[in-house]
């Protein structure tokens, strides 16, 4: 089966990007409550141009996670983010499914 069809190669992709000289950050779901879309341990690798692979939700919070992960490339420090239920009428970032999750974002240090 070709690598392109294997969706579980987030870390391999992160290592490859870094070997190419790109800056890379990682996001990992570390805790969930209620009906969270992706289980604990789910990961996202983010390249310095905001290209990303993997998932930490069903697509609800990836946009914000990518932004916050890119910020850790500047600060050099990991952060823990928390996302809860979103109000669909407001344009805030959150989970429509009613779950709550904590996500760790961190830079990969060369």
């Amino acid at each position, binding site marked *: *089966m070709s690598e392109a069809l294997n969706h579980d190669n987030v*870390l391999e992709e992160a290592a490859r990007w870094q070997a190419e000289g790109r800056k890379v950050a990682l996001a990992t779901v*570390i805790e969930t409550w209620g009906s969270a879309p992706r289980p604990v*341990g789910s990961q996202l690798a983010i390249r310095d141009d905001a290209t990303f692979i993997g998932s930490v939700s069903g697509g609800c919070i990836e946009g914000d996670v990518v932004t916050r992960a890119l910020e850790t490339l500047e600060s050099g420090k990991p952060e823990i983010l928390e996302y809860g239920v979103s109000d669909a009428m407001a344009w805030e970032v959150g989970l429509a499914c009613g779950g709550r999750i904590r996500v760790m974002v*961190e830079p990969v240090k*060369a």
Partner: protein
Amino acid sequence: MDAHILQQLVRDRAEKRATVLATRLTDGMQKLVYPTDKQEEKWLIEAVSQVLASDRGRIVEGPDGEWFLNPFNPPLRLILVGAVHIAQPLARIASLAGYDVTVVDPRTSFASEERFPDTHLVTGWPDEAMAALAPDARTAIVTLTHDPKLDDPALHAALRSPAFYVGALGSKKTHAARIARLAQAGFGEDEIARINGPVGLSIGAKSPAEIAISIMAQITETLRK
């Protein structure tokens, strides 16, 4: 994460070594912990063994604060006995679901590269093949040949192993005859009851691909429920 930890983790995954990425949440300190590491602290080894066994990451309370433990197990394995038509879509679907698939069939006209591209093929007899493959608790086994000469030795090995799923293709009638043979071979009722037969969830599957979906669905149900 330090680049050398990322590189080691990628190496561990390529070499199919179980490991846990441990992160101390108070300061972000990270290390890879292996369940067999004799140098590591006892509480951490116990927690690491637990998250690997459950295959679920979690936060644990250590003596120096909270740690997040993320397990990286080697892939689940699927052993298919019988390189028959159903094995072709099943090998592909299981591979998509993240399984390392091995197809066992001594009939080389069935177990050919052309029929199973990119699949690990073993053309020995099922008893020898199963001994070499040594199924563990992260292995599923499905027999597909309909031929007792090939299926039965594989089922004997499967029932003596801790495999999390054992399935056998065949009608109710075929399965009843199979149960009788296994009982005669000395297997108890509880052991024989581990076999999912007729194999797969009852979704009215007709084509080989549909039957493969029903089998993969049942393996997933057994794993996750």
